[in-house]
């Protein structure tokens, strides 16, 4: 379970997150929506400690992420993350991209790591691209590669940071399908997204962020059909 209590984040004078309280249970899919600059992505960065926080706590399965005593590298193995920019490692083949972390971080044997890599790549539909370098893959394929790479670490939670927003429109579908597949398999997911259709169909809950504040959270029907906050209403009106 991910528990966030009174989370504050500043970038210099900029107050990006203003006291967020949030719980995500095992097996839940949470979509985070909101206009850019609302602090959605920063939330994800704070969850896996890529950004330090100024106030509050983030706990994953009871472990305080930002405590000094916490081994962040170990903790991060529980958290898969997929970025807006797919960030595949250009000097490694698809297989090597996926197999690297299990091998050097988890200490698996080379054969075992490659087996995992192959399984995960087939899982995301890249079974025919095992030996390809990222430069030979399309954006959508690279993003699925990034998902496979995260899954290979057998994470318990997946964080998606606008995973589809840098893709060509016709490639968005293949990545969303993969994410949908994961959700159906019961993966716990936090998805920062602009894809309202995805958020509505796949999520268990949807959170709306506005200027560093979580304005509203609830089941998708409630947020999309009966938003309480005026900001949410305005945002959804613009998106539609």
């Amino acid at each position, binding site marked *: 379970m991910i528990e966030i209590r009174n989370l504050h984040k500043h970038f210099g004078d900029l107050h990006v997150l203003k006291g967020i309280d949030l719980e995500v249970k095992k097996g839940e899919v949470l979509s985070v929506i909101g206009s850019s600059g609302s602090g959605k992505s920063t939330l994800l960065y704070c969850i896996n400690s890529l950004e330090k926080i100024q106030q509050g706590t983030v706990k994953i399965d009871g472990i305080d992420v930002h405590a000094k005593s916490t081994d962040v*590298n170990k903790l991060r193995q529980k958290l898969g993350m997929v*970025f807006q920019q797919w960030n595949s490692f250009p000097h490694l083949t698809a297989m090597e991209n996926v197999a690297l972390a299990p091998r050097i971080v988890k200490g698996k044997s080379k054969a075992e790591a490659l087996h995992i890599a192959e399984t995960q790549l087939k899982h995301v539909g890249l079974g025919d691209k095992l030996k390809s370098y990222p430069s030979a893959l399309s954006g959508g394929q690279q993003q699925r590669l990034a998902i496979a790479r*995260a899954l290979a670490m057998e994470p318990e939670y997946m964080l998606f940071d606008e995973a589809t927003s840098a893709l060509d429109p016709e490639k968005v579908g293949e990545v969303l399908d993969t994410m949908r597949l994961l959700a159906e398999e019961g993966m716990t997911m936090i998805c920062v997204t602009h894809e309202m259709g995805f958020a509505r169909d796949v999520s268990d809950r949807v959170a709306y962020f506005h200027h560093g504040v979580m304005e509203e959270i609830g089941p998708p029907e409630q947020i999309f059909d009966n938003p309480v906050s005026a900001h949410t209403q305005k945002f959804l009106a613009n998106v539609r």
Partner: protein
Amino acid sequence: MFEYNFHWRPVLKSLPDLLQAGLLTLEVAVISMLIGITIGLCLALMRMKLNGPLKWFAVSWIEVARNTPVLFQLFFFGFGLGAAGINLPPYVIIVTGLSFNCAGYLAENFRGGFQAVPDTQMNAARCLGMNGWQTYTRIIIPQVFRIVYHPITNQMVWAVLMSSLGMMIGFRELSGETQFFASRTFRIFEYFAVTAVIYYVIVKLILGLSRLLSARLFRY
């Protein structure tokens, strides 16, 4: 025609010695480059990541190496250090001097290379649970090496050309050996002409080898 009569026979007689010295030139250049790459990498990281005396140390190394002549640097490691009671043999002087110089230039190449690798690669690796060392050795540095591969090749050629200054400090690599023979036979032009050809061939070999190697190394 000219009043000068060419005599090529002594040169041909000492050609085996010259080729042997050519190997020494290559050896010195390769060793200096290996040391230079290692130190250059460290200097680049020190300059980018650290503050305080270590950063200051890296910056001064880089700037002095880049802003003074190699020959000056060799003299310094020779008679300059000798005045302080540190006497290095010519082989060590030339390797030290070239490594010092190459490290300075390569450090800046590496710095450019690191800046060219997107920060997001770092985040991606850290998210997979890799620690800082693993991220650098497995993800960042391999990519930096591709970016600086061409500059490194150029620096290797420079190292070979610069090693010719060995003759100024009494080291008998290709140029030193040539000068030694020329000083006995007084056939300076003939000897140095042949040596120029040998250098040309060495440089072309390095460039060719580098091209072959890059085709094998960088398939992406």
